[in-house]
């Protein structure tokens, strides 16, 4: 079976869950080969990639690959595509992952599919568009299929691969070094999982009422080991930082469980969470459109319901 390249996403040397999902997905369609770009690969990371099926691990360890915005990674992948002629290239459908995919597509004269929520035979991808209203199956018909897959599209399952390491040397063009990263600013989000990767997301909206009251949302999130999200109304009001906004002009999440508290469920919001597997809504307005999506809904004041739910969860653990 031919090789499928999976671009590894990592945080401080630790392989992110979405990469394990992509390896799992790649196993069903070919032979997964992980591609690690940047310094700092560890024995643990290699073991993890192999555990989830990577037959090969291509390592481009140059510092230069992460010193400039996006272009170096696209260039490295393009060189690998030329050398290895893979059947497809999978990246995580994060903002940066999609940008890498876009540049790679131009470089390799290949089609690109973004925000796939599933991928099947012939690399036909499932997409959910128009705020979840329409399901599309799409495929690449020119070049090497490049597919950006949303986190949480597949349950990661281990199945050992050889994990044979191969160093790759990448020669960067001057054009790839056009935009330099001067400083990386990490904003504290505590121990919570990353929003787009989280298996559970708890989001608050207009009904939360104030920045201080978001502690209620955070309390529930922490009891569940979840990420915190916010609707546009809440970020517009300045109650919660914009990077946590879920929706059409914010992040798109696809978790196992999405809890919407004090969120009406306008299209702006639905476009960012409608592919969640299970949806729970808490809102005092029984007519709120969010209840049309909810698997379970509580019509009531979130300031009563959410703390009680948080307590119940703690008690039952």
């Amino acid at each position, binding site marked *: 079976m031919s090789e499928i390249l999976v671009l590894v996403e990592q945080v401080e040397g630790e392989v992110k869950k979405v990469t394990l999902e992509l390896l799992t997905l790649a196993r069903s369609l070919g032979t997964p080969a992980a591609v690690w770009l940047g310094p700092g690969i560890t024995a643990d990371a290699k073991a993890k990639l192999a555990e989830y099926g990577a037959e090969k691990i291509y390592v481009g360890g140059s510092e230069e690959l992460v010193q400039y915005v996006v272009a170096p990674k696209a260039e490295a992948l393009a060189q690998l595509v030329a050398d290895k002629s893979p059947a497809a290239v999978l990246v995580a459908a994060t903002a940066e992952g999609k940008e890498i995919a876009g540049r790679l597509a131009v470089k390799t004269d290949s*089609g690109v599919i973004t925000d796939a929520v599933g991928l099947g035979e012939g690399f036909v991808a499932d997409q959910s568009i128009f705020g979840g209203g329409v399901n599309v199956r799409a495929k690449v018909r020119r070049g090497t299929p490049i597919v950006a897959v949303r986190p949480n599209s597949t349950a990661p399952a281990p199945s050992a691969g050889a994990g044979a390491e191969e160093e790759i040397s990448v020669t960067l063009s001057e054009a790839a070094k056009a935009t330099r990263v001067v400083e990386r600013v990490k904003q504290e989000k505590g121990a919570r999982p990353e929003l787009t990767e989280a298996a559970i997301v708890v989001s608050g909206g207009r009904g939360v009422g104030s920045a201080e009251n978001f502690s209620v949302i955070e309390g529930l999130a922490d009891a569940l080991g979840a990420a915190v999200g916010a609707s546009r109304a809440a970020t517009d009001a300045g109650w919660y930082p*914009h990077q946590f906004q879920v929706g059409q002009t914010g992040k798109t999440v696809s978790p196992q469980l999405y809890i919407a508290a004090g969120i009406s469920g306008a299209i702006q919001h639905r476009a960012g969470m409608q592919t969640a597997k299970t949806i729970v809504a808490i809102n005092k307005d029984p007519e709120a459109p969010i209840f049309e999506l909810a698997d379970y809904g509580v019509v009531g004041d979130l300031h009563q319901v959410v703390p009680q739910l948080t307590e119940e969860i703690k008690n039952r653990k």
Partner: protein
Amino acid sequence: MNIVVCVKQVPDTATERKLRSDDKTLDRDAADGVVNELDEYAVEEALKLKEAHGGEVTVLTMGPGKATETIRKALAMGADKAVHLSDDALHGSDALSTSYAMAQVLKKIGFDLVILGSESTDARTGVLAAMLAERLGAAQLTLANKVEVEGTSIRVQRITDYGFDKVEAALPAVVSVVEKINEPRYPSFKGIMAAKKKPVETLAIGDASIDAGQVGLDAAWSEVVDFAAAPPRAAGTIVKDEGDGGANAADFLASKKFI
């Protein structure tokens, strides 16, 4: 500074959006066309940079005839002139062909800075700015929530999953902006009247050296195999909180093995 701001007309997200059953492309007649929301932030940022540094703001759009409404809106906000790439041969273009066609126009009209919204509300691919930078050989400073230009250098705060990166480059550059970078102005009455007199150049593909074999539905690098309306979600259980709503929700979560 010669700033080109790319705008896109998209179907209003408040209306029901559809794909056409015949060629599986966006049904532009099914919904009202509006300016892609994030592009309004791009126009505002372009105008602010012009106000601070001088120069000219050109609006560029690719789309059918009715996309002129979108051009007029950007001109009414304060842009100086516009270029409208409009040709039936472009119908059905995917991101690769769109970026190719727009790059051809940008090479023809010239630029120091290209600004656009980080994604459109219809296709939501989020790849166009990166593709343009690649095709133009210009610096990519995307997902910006802050833009500073000084002479020929540009610095941007690029939002990331962990916060933001401070990145810098020399012009020419392609910048994409995120929501909340600014507060887009409303066109004034005077602006709306003035927009009617501002020059709008309409280009067909031949005018911008665009190869017909690289654009449109037949040339697209990707295709929609089939599509269907999403099946409605099964009706859920909705309960009224009688003082035990949280406990009830916990029961539900337990039944689904979340706790």
